[in-house]
């Protein structure tokens, strides 16, 4: 194998890669998935309750609501503007504080308080805001609350937001799609277009070709994984552990990509392989999303050995020593898969010539 020839092959692949719609899609995929995740799981399923207030005299109630955490407060300039806010579903609940409302509360007059709400708002948000407003009113009335509510988190696993739980899944998706697909697709393209034969009658060897595809896939995958983690705010304070995990995962995925690429004679076969087998690689993710499932089953999947460390590092802040054993297993799997590529490459060479 020659570094010069490998570099020449990579430079050719880079030139071709940026002209390939599939490779371009792989490059923008982390951005698209992150965007979708933010929209679906953060904006849609996990929004903060929103309240809009019209309060002409800046009463104590609106001042008290301003400091409450966990709700989003906006102010309307007029009752008409508040109505518009609600109708457009820009707030879950609207509150019009009449002049002298707070004083009336203090005087024990029990004044009427009107809530306006939109049909598009979540019932849970309306309840949350209602309870918060009642709590604030009790304070203004100087009444003692009948109980002290203490917030106690449950199982650590359960307190991680779904959007955060999905971060390792997105990284796995990047690993599977970029790490496996880039080397596999590039190899298959060379075979399908006959250019592999043209390369093999130059000083380029099969090892040069395989190594160049793997190296390009490796670089792209590691970069895309870190971009994905950064986009999702999951670059933890454990850079060494994170780097080691991504590297181990990429080695496994690149080796699988080379296996797919050497086995498949054309793009159709490759897509069939990817569609039928990648679902098995993504298996461990199910065990993180559904923690009630027997967790030992996840260990059967080769991807578990780098996804579990990734989960521990990004979501629980685990350090390198805590995940080193699993990473060593992942690296071992990667090396075994790389060894498998050798006889497959000889088979590919024979098939190419026939």
């Amino acid at each position, binding site marked *: 194998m*020659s570094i*010069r*020839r490998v570099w*020449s*092959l990579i*430079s*050719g692949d880079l*030139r*071709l890669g940026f*002209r*390939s719609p599939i490779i371009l899609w792989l490059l923008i995929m982390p951005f698209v998935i992150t965007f979708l995740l933010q929209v679906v799981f953060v904006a849609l399923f996990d929004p903060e309750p929103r309240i809009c207030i019209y309060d002409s005299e800046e009463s104590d109630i609106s001042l008290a609501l301003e400091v409450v955490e966990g709700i989003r407060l906006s102010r309307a300039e007029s009752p008409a503007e508040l109505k518009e806010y609600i109708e457009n579903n820009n707030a879950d609940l609207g509150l019009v504080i009449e002049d002298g409302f707070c004083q009336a509360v203090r005087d024990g007059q029990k004044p009427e308080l009107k809530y306006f709400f939109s049909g598009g708002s979540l019932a849970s948000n309306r309840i949350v805001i209602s309870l918060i407003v009642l709590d604030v009113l009790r304070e203004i009335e100087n009444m003692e609350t009948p109980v002290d509510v203490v917030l106690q988190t449950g199982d650590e696993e359960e307190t991680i937001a779904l959007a955060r739980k999905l971060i390792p899944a997105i990284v796995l998706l990047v690993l599977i799609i970029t790490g496996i697909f880039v080397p596999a697709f590039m190899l298959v393209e060379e075979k399908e*277009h*006959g*250019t592999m*034969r*043209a*390369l*093999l*009658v*130059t*000083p*380029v*060897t*099969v090892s040069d070709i395989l190594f160049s595809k793997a190296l390009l896939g490796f670089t792209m995958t590691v970069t895309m994984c870190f971009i994905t983690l950064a986009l999702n705010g999951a670059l933890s304070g454990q850079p060494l552990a994170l780097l080691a995990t991504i590297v181990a995962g990429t080695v496994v995925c690149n080796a699988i990509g080379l296996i797919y690429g050497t086995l498949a004679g054309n793009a159709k076969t490759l897509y069939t392989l990817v569609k039928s087998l990648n679902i098995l690689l993504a298996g461990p993710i199910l065990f993180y999303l559904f923690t009630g499932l027997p967790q030992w089953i996840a260990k059967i999947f080769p991807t578990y050995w780098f996804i579990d460390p990734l989960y521990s590092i990004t979501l629980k802040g685990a350090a390198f020593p805590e995940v080193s054993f699993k990473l060593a297993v992942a690296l071992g799997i990667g090396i075994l898969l790389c060894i498998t590529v050798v006889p497959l490459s000889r088979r590919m*060479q*024979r098939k*190419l*010539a*026939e």
Partner: protein
Amino acid sequence: MDPALFVENLSFSYGRLKAVQGISFHLNPGEILGFLGPNGAGKSTTIKMLTGLLTPDTGSIQILGMKMSLDNPEVQARIGVCFEEKNLYMNMTGRENLKFFSRLFGLKYCDVDTLLRRVDLAHRADDRVSMYSKGMRQRLMMARAIINSPDVLFLDEPTDGLDPVSSRTIRNIIREQAVRGAAVLLTTHDMWEADELSDRVAFLNEGKLYVVDTPDSLKMKYGRRSVKIRLGGGNQVREEIIELGAADAGDRIRELINSDNVMTIHTEEATLEDIFIEITGRGLDV
């Protein structure tokens, strides 16, 4: 002079099908050897073995004194190959294709523009190959095959299905390469092309090599040495065939020419196709 290519007892089978059966030949520097045979004769399989793509079942291949194998970059650096199938990078331009391959050969300097001009592609150098016609692609493949000034050039049906202009360009390049000193192995089932280009021809049929000789020698050996003279007089046209070996052949030809009735004179030597059929019992276009 040491042969540029030395092949001994080469065989290859695809399962039970014997594609090449114990062929032996050699090719000298500056020589063009035409491999003639019908489809399925074993020409492409032989080229694949000679270029290292296939490992022979038996036999040996020596190129420039070195053993041929796919993992021998030293040999690969000194050969050029032009396949029958079009295997260029379609999303690269013609210029990019050549530059890419020049880097793979480790050439420090490569005059791609001169090469593109030589194959009449200078005006389309920066167009993607996917926009090229069949003839243009074949010419670019030819340029790619000679980018490293190879000592041994393997050409598999290089003019198959091309327009006359592209075919002529490629034939001229083949001649230039031989003049430069390259040994050229050319497979074709076009006997006219083989006759025009080849210093020697080899007849391959059903994986067996029947004969390797110069076209002239084969014609002498297998063809008829005769002249056909068409004579016209009044409304009648008649033909006379004169065997050149006959004792009075010269006198008879002179006599006919002096008669003022001669319309045409044709030599009656055999074509390579005739000889091929005579030797192998099979036509070239089968």
